[in-house]
């Protein structure tokens, strides 16, 4: 097993372990296809959407494995309408949140900003 394989394996089995910090969410492609994924979510304070928008929205930083099984692969991600169903507050009903930015990524993980 190469280091590359270990990174990919750890991303799913260690970092996105549902027994630890990860939770299950639904990834929705722009075309409407839905898939369950395991994610670690940082729920941040409301932030302005843009300087002149006059409005703020919730911010989610989502860590997800770079895989097309229980994660999102970097080559399938479309920043033109893909979204993830997330609860604004833990325990609340989930709602669809658009993926607005690929903050960073490597072979193992993607870090996404959803609003």
């Amino acid at each position: 097993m190469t280091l590359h394989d270990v990174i990919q394996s750890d991303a799913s089995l260690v970092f996105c372990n549902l027994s630890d910090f990860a939770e299950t969410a639904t990834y929705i492609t722009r075309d409407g296809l839905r898939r369950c994924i395991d994610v670690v979510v940082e729920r941040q304070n409301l932030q302005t959407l843009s300087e002149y928008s006059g409005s703020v929205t919730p911010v989610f930083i989502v860590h997800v494995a770079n895989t097309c099984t229980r994660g999102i692969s970097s080559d399938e991600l479309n920043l033109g309408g893909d979204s993830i169903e997330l609860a604004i507050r833990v325990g609340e009903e989930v709602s669809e949140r658009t993926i607005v930015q690929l903050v960073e990524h490597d072979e193992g993980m993607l870090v996404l900003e959803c609003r």
Partner: protein
Amino acid sequence: MSIGTLPVVERIAVELKRRLDLLADVTNTTYNTKVNEVIRPNRLESYTPKDMQIVLTTDSIETVPELMYPGNPPAVAKRVTFHINCNVVNDESVNEPIDTIVHMFAADVEQVVTSDSSTWHTFSNLAVDAEFLSHVPHSAGGGFDGVTVPIAITYRTDENNPYQVRA
């Protein structure tokens, strides 16, 4: 709450949204831009940016001393600025320049707001003047783009009754 019980500024907002909603009408064949939704955010701003979405917000309300006039009660003039935020979250594979989409979006917003008649600027006899201000493009790290189209609307009310329109 019926519309008759709303302050003049809110009735103007309702009329502005009604006009913008025409872009979201599924039967719309007049405008190039097909809008998915027009929203006015709630306090917790729980909406999410979407493709072809309009988010209507109120910016400032300032007094306009030169347009006030005396009486009993006097008429006070105010200018409210609404921000018409046009969000575009188009497919990564689309080759059309984002500027083209944004320009058409902004143009259709101006056209639909002014389409009623030569008296569009009165917003159904609620205002005395209206003008579009400079457009402000916005971008969020590749996730979504768009433009804010501000519109300043001047209206008069009784000094002691913001619900009552004055000519």
